[in-house]
């Protein structure tokens, strides 16, 4: 059905170029990580992972994600619900503000927290007097991660919600449903796949963040190093097998994320096309997404 306008050789050349780029920039580095990790055998691989500092890095990374992702989930749903379904003053400004963490450098994101909560910062002396530790401790790492991943869920949901319009909600309200009932029974079922997709992306970023976390961490071994920071330390200590073994954990996270994402996209599509009139809605979602990424 597709219309072909290009010469066959042009198409082949373009496809070949794309495949070479893919192999060079994505497959090869991935291969190198796993190759270096397993280079000295599976036993060495597991032994190098079996280290208290590595465990504590994994623990901190998981805790950070466990706090940051649910908070972003709540925020993302609330923000996109407000932006997509209601009109209010300052809406455009809010939409722009949500994107801010994506547009500033992670180093700046980290420095913001040092300037706010550091000993020389705005709240530093007060916090110190009251014995509250934020900077160079897990709270700062969690805060920085929340900041960095702020837009992830909202950005996924806003186009989905916009595409669906507010007719169904209006109908529910007219039939006497409360605000929460409307959300729980009408909006949520409509956005659940988009939501899951956003959460997965958010989680991947939360676990992989390096720049902002590096600025606020203080790099205390076994205490404030997340997995990405720990990998750098291992590498700098000439502990290459352990560094690549830890890196392979993060790479596996990326692969799992990718598989989950594909599965959700697959289900998402099947579900949408199974319903009447959903082709239009899906096209709307797609259009919204393109607008989003442009």
């Amino acid at each position: 059905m597709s219309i072909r306008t290009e010469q066959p050789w042009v198409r082949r050349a373009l496809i070949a170029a794309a495949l070479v780029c893919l192999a060079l920039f994505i497959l090869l580095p991935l291969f190198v990580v796993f190759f270096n990790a397993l280079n000295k055998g599976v036993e060495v691989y597991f032994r190098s992972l079996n280290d208290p500092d590595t465990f504590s890095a994994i623990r901190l990374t998981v805790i950070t994600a466990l706090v940051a992702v649910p908070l972003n989930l709540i925020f993302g749903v609330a923000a996109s619900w407000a932006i997509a379904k209601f009109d209010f003053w300052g809406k455009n400004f809010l939409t722009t503000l949500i994107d801010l963490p994506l547009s500033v450098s992670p180093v700046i994101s980290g420095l913001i927290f040092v300037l706010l909560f550091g000993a020389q910062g705005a709240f530093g002396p007060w916090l110190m007097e009251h014995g509250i530790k934020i900077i160079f401790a897990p709270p700062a790492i969690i805060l920085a991660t929340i900041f960095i991943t702020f837009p992830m869920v909202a950005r996924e949901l806003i186009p989905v919600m916009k595409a669906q319009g507010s007719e169904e909600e209006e109908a529910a309200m007219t039939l006497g449903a409360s605000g929460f009932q409307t959300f729980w029974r009408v909006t949520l079922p409509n956005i659940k796949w988009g939501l899951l997709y956003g959460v997965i992306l958010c989680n991947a970023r939360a676990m992989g963040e390096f720049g902002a976390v590096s600025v606020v961490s203080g790099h205390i071994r076994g205490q404030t190093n997340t997995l990405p920071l720990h990998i750098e330390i291992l590498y700098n200590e000439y502990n290459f097998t352990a560094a690549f073994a830890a890196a392979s954990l993060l790479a596996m996270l990326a692969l799992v994320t990718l598989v989950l994402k594909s599965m959700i996209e697959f289900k998402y599509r099947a579900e949408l096309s199974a319903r009447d009139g959903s082709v239009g809605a899906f096209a709307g979602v797609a259009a919204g997404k393109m607008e989003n990424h442009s």
Partner: protein
Amino acid sequence: MKVRKFLLGILAIVVMIDFATVGWAKQVTLLNVSYDPTRELYDDYNKVFAQYWKEKTGDDVVINQSHGGSGKQARAVIDGLEADVVTLALAYDIDAIAGKSGLIPSKWQERLADNSSPYTSTIVFLVRKGNPKNIKDWEDLPREGVSVITPNPKTSGGARWNYLAAWGFALKKWNNDEEKAKEFLKAIFKNVPVLDSGARGSTTTFVERGIGDVLISWENEAYLAVNELGPDKFEIVVPSLSILAEPPVTVIDRNVDRRGTRKVAEEYLNFLYTQQGQEIAAKHYYRPRLKSVAKQYADQFQPVNLFTIDEVFGGWQKAQKTHFADKGIFDQIYGN
């Protein structure tokens, strides 16, 4: 229902973390904020000290470590990184803590023996096996076709020692002619293809990435690279003149008083000066102060003619201001 279960799960995890922290709090913990190449030294030393402290007092002490470029680490302590002790690359960085945060008195360096530096080091060259470019002394570094690796003096303590060692050599060679020294340094930095931000970064550049013909390096860092990565690949060249590098240590008064760790923190630093502490330092290629240990490890350290920073530059404050401050001599020679 699912949401409730999810929230309960998160609550359970948070409670578990709380218990974990309570469990930790029963031990005495110290935080030693240090510079880049001391990782292996303190890894070893902390174990020995913990054992010593246990035997002496019956208490468990856990020492946490943080490593990074010396200047960067000082900045973190100023910004609130709760160090009980700092063990940095040079006195200027600890001066900065005293000046910018008031966490320690400005006369901190007089509190311990030997300028508060329990061990010393110097600056040497690491070259590839067989020394293919025939690098013998500082004079060989500006030669055409020689690629020199050294970190950025703006961020790295080691790099500042490297720079000052070269400067001291030039002054001696040209009878204190500063213009000649400036030209000499400029010619060296023309041969530097990458400026890493820390000493360890430069070592990795030279050793792992295979860039450069000579690495200007801490003596201990050079030995570590040779031992870790194969004596068949690198060799150490000692120049005719180098600088006596004194990496100082101090207790951060305000932090130890608030945390109630002054006694153990002070003992931690004093123990560095004992026979046992000095031996550990020597084992990691830091030059010990104690004569008996120095004698014992004499074969390990080649004799070098050393000058001190006070003799040639009049101290760190002055050296920093003249050479590394904005628009200082380093900016003049590297900028254009």
